[in-house]
């Protein structure tokens, strides 16, 4: 079965969506990702959607859900590389992904993720690993 690879990089997970998403693929990703977060005790998830050209309300909602689920599992989510057309579509659909952080590209996304995790760790009063 087709799957979207989830790469582990330090304490972060990298998801690069290179194919057009269909509903089943999105549900599988949601499943895999939550499992991997628990398995690897990841602190952050970076989802690169720069190759994603078509979104519908389901995929948009799925992105939001992944963000919410990750937060419950104590991992920050950053969505990077959204195309202008995709952004406009999501806004027109009324989905502004409130719970998810966004960045222009992978580099900025990683910076954001690091800053976010560092802030959270210091905020909780725990020493960084």
């Amino acid at each position, binding site marked *: 079965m087709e799957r979207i690879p989830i790469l582990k990089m330090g304490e972060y997970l990298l998801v690069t969506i290179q194919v057009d998403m269909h509903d089943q693929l999105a549900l599988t990703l949601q499943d895999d990702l939550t499992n991997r977060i628990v398995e690897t005790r990841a602190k952050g998830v970076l989802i690169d959607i720069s190759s994603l050209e078509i979104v519908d309300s389901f995929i948009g909602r799925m992105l939001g859900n992944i963000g919410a689920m990750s937060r419950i599992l104590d991992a920050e989510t950053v969505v990077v590389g959204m195309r*202008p057309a995709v952004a406009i579509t999501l*806004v027109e659909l009324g989905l*502004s992904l409130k719970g998810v952080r966004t960045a*222009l590209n992978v580099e900025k996304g990683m910076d954001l993720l690091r800053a976010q995790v560092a802030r959270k760790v210091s905020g909780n009063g725990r020493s960084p690993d």
Partner: protein
Amino acid sequence: MESNTTVAKLPEMVKKHQQNLLATWVSHQLASKHSRPGLIKESELRQQSQQFLSAFIQALQNGASFEIGSSTWAGVRDILSQISRSRATQGFSPTETALFVFSLKQPLFSVIRQELALDGVALADQTWSTTLLLDELGLYTMEVYQKGREEFISRQQQELTELSTPVVSLWEGVLALPLIGTLDSSRTQVVMENLLEQIVSTGASLAIIDITGVPTVDTLVAQHLLKTVAAARLMGADCIISGIRPQIAQTIVHLGVELGNVITKASLADAFAVALERSGLMITRAASRP
């Protein structure tokens, strides 16, 4: 059929009196109180009238039909649209343009009266059918004139939309979007697309939307602004709305518009200061002057 006989007679009459008709028609046009000697030369007017008249005769001879939409009248329609378009650009008013065709009525009727003086019924029939024909041609002229104006307006509107939505780069990673004029949905679309394209190409992480030039902000405009902000956020760029005049601040609150967690500033300068602070930059005075 009776109408056929009258139609059959008209081309002959017009043909017979062509020169006379042209001369009286042109002099009628020149003498009319709507004549505009400053806008069009007499020679040009004469030439246009000549062209129309010969096409008119041609069409009359070719078919028994008074249906100006048919192919028989294609030549006449072409000439009329040409004249009508050129008049629209020359600055003629609608009335003056329509009068080109309508002023043919009087000369044409006197020809008909002259020819059919002895037959009252035929005279009335002929006059009536000719009136209908000329009316249709006149209305066609107006339609073309109107269409020309509409094309002109929509072209200008489009230019205005593109002109008034520039995205400028203020600093590395800081974009400014000075909005001028009312925001409707089609303009918002253009603005949004421009902004997002620029965010991608410059890699900016902050965009300042300046609404100093937006005359009024109602719920719809606010909604459009918020949409733009949300779209930019999805691309990973934060937005600051600046240039909010006191009047507009009052309106926004009275309307109960919720701007959410968007940063708002009174002036572009304030917004720029925030942008610099975010980028970790600082402006300091150079060495103090004596």
